[in-house]
């Protein structure tokens, strides 16, 4: 039974999620109290346990893994062994949701696809996040998070204005797909609470990353135009850029849309002569002459810190914010006031810092209750307590490397 604080308590998720998209999806639900049981195996660890910042190469100490897998339980099951499959089916029988982001067909090969599982658990909700979907001429495509950002066209716009394509270089499509996935699972839970019916949800990551690009797609549909690399250009806004500040790699973002904001900006920076020039007299001219203006604004920001510029401009009602690095965000008064980073004790790494839940709910806030699990940390709880297996049976399956 759920408490008000953790509204998804009582909802159990068997989570086959690996790497980014799947674990982020289940993590969003775990934040709100869902019991997420992460299926791992020592035969093939989740690659994020040994990511590029895992300096010590210890799978219990990966710094990124800690963040996206907090609040979860871990069991180790080798489901290439059919006894492992049988164990997982027992678990699915007492779960409400199954989540996975393998390539299409992987779970089916092991008899763990929706059609098989719904026979055991008729009102099951199952969500899959295949990169290119399970049908269509490119369903067999092997995709990685970054290449999906290329396929959907978003990366085509990432680069300095009119220059070469750089791309986002981060698991951004995974996050978009994970949010769509968590939202869809909650919608399906809502339907289930209304009707008792479960269902299968396919969420193609390529489509998810495409669906958030409305204006660029409509530009192509309406006018047949392809945007090139956009830099920091936003149509109709100038200044609109990140400007250099005092210090190493320090920048401040400034964005101006209206004449009022422009007037306030000019006054705030001491009404310099250049700001009164004809070529910056209205929004259209400022937009046309934005490169020259960016240079002049940059000369003004260069001698100041990004925080100074922000404070000065915000006082005048102009949108500005510093580009904050990780160390700055950990120390920033606003991030601290909002508890954007949360400490959590981890048995191996000590105090870990993970990010807050991306929203704040006044009545049912959820929270960060437990650190990311050690590999197989909850085998005893899940097999012993939940599945009521005897100690002999558990020991035997450990020895046989089924629980492994």
């Amino acid at each position: 039974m759920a408490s008000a604080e953790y509204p998804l308590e009582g909802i159990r998720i068997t989570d086959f999620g690996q790497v980014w998209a799947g674990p982020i999806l289940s993590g969003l639900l775990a934040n709100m109290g869902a019991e997420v049981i992460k299926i791992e195996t020592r035969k093939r660890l989740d690659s994020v346990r040994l990511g590029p910042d895992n300096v010590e190469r210890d799978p219990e100490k990966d710094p990124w893994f800690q963040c996206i897998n907090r609040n979860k339980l871990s069991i180790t099951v080798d489901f290439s062994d059919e006894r492992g499959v049988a164990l997982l089916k027992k678990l699915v029988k007492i779960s409400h949701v199954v989540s996975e982001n393998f390539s299409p067909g992987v779970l089916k090969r092991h008899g763990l696809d929706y059609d098989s599982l719904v026979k055991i658990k008729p009102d099951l909700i199952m969500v899959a996040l295949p990169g290119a979907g399970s049908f269509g001429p490119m369903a067999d495509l092997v995709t990685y998070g970054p290449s999906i950002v290329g396929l959907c066209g978003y990366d085509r716009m990432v680069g300095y204005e009119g220059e070469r394509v750089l791309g986002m270089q981060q698991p951004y499509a995974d996050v978009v797909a994970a949010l769509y996935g968590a939202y869809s699972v909650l919608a399906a839970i809502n339907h289930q609470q209304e009707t008792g019916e479960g269902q299968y949800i396919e969420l193609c990551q390529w489509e998810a990353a495409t669906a958030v690009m409305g204006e660029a797609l409509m530009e192509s549909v309406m006018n047949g135009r392809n945007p090139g690399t956009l830099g920091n250009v936003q149509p109709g806004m100038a200044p609109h850029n990140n400007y250099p500040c005092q210090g190493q790699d320090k920048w401040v973002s400034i964005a101006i849309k209206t004449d009022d904001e422009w007037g306030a900006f000019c006054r705030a920076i001491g009404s310099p002569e250049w700001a009164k020039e004809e070529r910056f007299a209205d929004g259209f001219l400022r937009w046309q002459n934005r490169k020259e203006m960016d240079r002049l604004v940059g000369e003004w920001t260069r001698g100041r810190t990004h925080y100074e510029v922000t404070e000065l401009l915000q006082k005048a009602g102009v949108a500005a914010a510093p580009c904050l690095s990780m160390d700055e965000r950990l120390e920033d008064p606003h991030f601290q006031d909002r508890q954007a980073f949360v400490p959590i004790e981890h048995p191996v790494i000590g105090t870990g810092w993970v990010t807050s839940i991306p929203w704040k709910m006044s009545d049912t806030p959820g929270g960060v209750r437990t650190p990311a699990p050690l590999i197989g940390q909850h085998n005893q709880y899940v097999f012993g307590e939940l599945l009521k297996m005897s100690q002999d049976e558990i020991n035997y399956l450990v020895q046989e490397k089924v629980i492994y």
Partner: protein
Amino acid sequence: MTLIPGDKPGAASVASDTRQSKGPLTGVKVVEYGDFISAPFCTRLMADLGAEVVKVEPPDCGDSSRRYGPFPQDSPHREKSGLYLYLNANKLGVTLDIGTATGANMFRQLLAQADVLVENHAPGHLDKFGLGYQSLKEHFPRLIVTSITPFGQTGPYRDYKAYAINCSAAAGWSLIVGEPGREPLTPPLSMGHYISALSASTATMVAVIARRLTGRGQQIDVSEVECLNSLLSGVAANAFVYYGRMRMRHGNRSPAAYPYAVLPCKDGYMWMIAIQGHEWKRFLDVLGGGKPPDWYESDPRFKDRLKAGREYADELDARLAPWLMSHTKQEIFQLCRDNHIPFAPVNDIDEVVNNEHLNARGFFVELEHPEAGRLKYPGEPQKFSRTPWSLRSAAPTLGQHNEEVFCGRLGVPKQELALLRAGGVI
């Protein structure tokens, strides 16, 4: 499997002439008092799954996305903005000036019939009209109020003014996009707005489910900066705390095992990424005609892919360049697919809109709008086996449903509509 009616769920579920939905949010009533992208996209997501959304716009000018475009044939028209049309399909549209006493009162009457209010105005804006959360909570204890703002409802920066570029800056998201030494790049298309909208719709669904248990509504405070930090740029906090490592800008590549970069080819760009060693090996075989090329085999520096990715990436790129520059995206992509190599093209937008795969999946949908005509729109990525999403109506023209909503739902006598209009209320 019961999934996917007719194998084309998007197309199959389009029914532009009917308001009937089988979506999983059927019966949920939402009022949107939003502008531009974040709140409108949040409620579009809910409308697509069957919620009834009444969008409240200021009279005369409407939502600012109506002036943003893109416009067909580049002809600005408030009913033809591509951004507005995309973000506001499936909604009822009314106009209301909540700054008038009558308007505020009618807004309250709309909320009395609603489960959810979604808004994205500056913190405190609704308080000015007696519509702040505390007041709403007193009158409508079951109402869920979802507010999306740059910095959230509390904290020292809560009143800071911020556009998408400022949010991605503060969140540390821009700092990891671009070239070292040059200015950080904000992710295009105001992407932070979309991510905060997805977070907001997810949190709102948690609240809808929670309300079944508690009987109470609640306030949901969504900060765009926090969403970006929590889900993207802040995930590596421990890497800094423990190892002093901070992700910075690396141009067209990531500091990972080679190859992990966007590289130019004859007619565009390819995403050259191979996480598994055998994937890279297969590409080298293609390159060398059945075996890795001699320049690769004879140079031991390239064997350690992680080291090569960090130290010799430029040199390797230069080695690949002649081959890449003499092949098109489609040629390379086809060769890679034939040989199980996961390299993918960086598609142009028209290549996405006309993509064989996305179209075969029924991802894009066509819809008729009274002013903008018949257009192709991106669909929803979710394929529910039992409760498919549906596109039931095009975006509303300004005030299109005033009569239906005000007279039909609130009981305003029809003869008063003209008076309300003359009084600047609607």
